[in-house]
């Protein structure tokens, strides 16, 4: 049984699929995630594939400050991702609310108060290198989680 689990964990961490959910940010983080899929940073080197389908995702990247009427949609979408999953809060907005925090009627961040967040990647926006490093770390977390 352990062998099967080990094999499964190994294969899952070998090729995790990424779901990228832009949730009310300024697009800055989103275009840096796009840059990560480009030839210069190329997350496919690490076996990752950005596929916008929650049912098959292993890593969820959430960017943005989560405005009020996106909160339940975001929650439902992330709940559809099968366990084990890694949720990354990418960028300052998702981590803490960033510049939009304060007296703001609209936003519902920090993301940690809505969803269980496994990894934080702060930055406004984070450089693609920092995003890559976050993804590499989350792959390691995913292996641990699926054991």
């Amino acid at each position, binding site marked *: 049984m352990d062998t099967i689990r080990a094999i499964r964990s190994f294969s899952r961490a070998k090729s995790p699929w990424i779901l990228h959910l832009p949730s*009310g940010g*300024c697009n*800055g983080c989103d275009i840096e995630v796009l840059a990560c899929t480009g030839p210069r940073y190329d997350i496919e080197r690490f076996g990752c594939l950005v596929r916008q389908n929650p049912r098959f995702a292993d890593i969820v990247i959430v960017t943005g400050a989560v*405005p009020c*009427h*996106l909160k339940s*949609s975001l929650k439902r979408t992330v709940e559809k991702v099968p366990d084990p999953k890694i949720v990354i809060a990418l960028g300052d907005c998702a981590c803490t609310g960033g510049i939009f925090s304060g007296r703001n*009627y609209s936003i519902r961040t920090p993301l940690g108060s809505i969803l269980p967040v496994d990894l934080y990647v702060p930055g406004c926006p984070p450089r693609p290198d920092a995003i890559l490093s976050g993804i590499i770390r989350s792959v390691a977390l995913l292996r641990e989680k699926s054991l």
Partner: protein
Amino acid sequence: MSIKDRVLERLAEASGGTIQGYDRGPSRAYVRIPKGKVGDVARTLIEFGARLSAISVVDLGHRGFDVVYHHSLDQAESPLMISAKAQVEREEPLIESITPLTPQADWAEREMAEMYGITFRGHPDLRHLILPPDWSKGSGSGAVQEGAAVGTEGGGEGVRLPRDLMKGKARIPVGVYHPMLIEPVYFALGVDGERITGVDLKPGFAHRGIMKLAEERSYTRDTFLVERVCGICSASHTAAYCKGVEMLGGVEIPDRARYIRTFMCELERIHSHTLWLAIAMDLIGFDSMLMMILRERERVLDMREEISGGRITTGMSKIGGVRRDISGDALAKARASLSLLGDAVASISSAVRSDPLVRRRLEGRGVLAARDAMRLGVVGPVARGSGVPMDVRKSDPYDAYSEVSFGIATRTEGDSLARTEVRLDELAESLSICRQCLDRLEGTAGPIAAEEVPEFDDGAEALSRVEAPRGELLYYIVSNGTNQPALVRIRTPSFMNNPALSTILKGETFADAPLVIGSIDPCLSCTDRIEAVRQGIRSGRA
């Protein structure tokens, strides 16, 4: 008699001789009109070929609200913007809707109605635009309270659409998260077989209350806030905001600052258009081209990082000038990168233009006729692709645009291909402007920022606009004499372009929808900023 005098004379006639006007510089006129004559004034301005740029609302405390209609006369020989103000009471804010006269007012009135609780009488459809549909009615009279976490937790399922839009045909909901969309937004597409018959769009899923936050922070802190309205056109936002604040205080920025700002704005246009092209190629399925463009785009981002220290948020403009200089080594490096970039852009654009598959996907898809473009008031490459030659850089030159030479790319077809070609032409123009700016920077000495910025008078107002990558970006800033603005109204280009989707998409096949939506380059972070008024009367304003 100048066009300005003619317009003001006719406005006085239309509003029954009770017009009071005042000027702020040669290209801006502010007139106060009676509340009941809003329709007549709008009709007069439309006769002059004016385009309704935006509607702002200024909260005057217990005196009520000023509803300000910003009209732009693009065809005038000199730049002219006329802002007509009508005052409404606080207790029962009611004003005549001008949407039946011009569809340009549709979204603007809906936005102001939900945010300030103003009723536009005669508006056909005053549903919530930005706020959730189940957000309690009449926000202005108290739904949004200070600091309170009010409002709804409801999701996209709460979006209700008018039934008659679909007329018994199938209705396909797209969003809030959808593989076809890059940003969260909700589309309802009515389809008959393969053909799209009706479109309803619910933006607001990226609403961060930026305008409200801007009022609570100092002018300097706001520079960084407006930079994050949109990460793609951050330089344009800061340039427009800083220009507005400089207009408030009558500050002239040094020459070097003007060239550097222009350079950064054009660099951003290259960055934005290449990004758009990459996404369009992705939607078409031309993956090798996507990768090629993403590879070359890194040059722009590297350049921005080299100059400003940040790839996306450059933070170059500040009130009174720019933060960092481009000189010596950095200038030579920028020049070298530009020539490599120019080479890459030329080959990419010739490949895109000549590829028969790309042409076939884009040609004749999502046609917006010139007449419709004028009627809907679209801006930027969408307008220029439909043969409307409007460009703020030419019609109301700012920074260094009156000194550099460039052409306006236009096409008359109005389809997705025309919009693509406009953007490709603009890439070449932008590269040339960048080179000219660097040339001028080399020959100009002096400071990069004005010595000091004076304090602003209570009630001072400024209307600034720049040509962002997606079109005319408008900032209306009102001062209350403190170090915090009384109003920062942001009207982004996508706010004008997105409503045009209902016209553009009609008659297209469902399979073409992603590409056609993409062809207008809708930026939803831009669309969804704006504010809500707080309960009660604003303190500090008599």
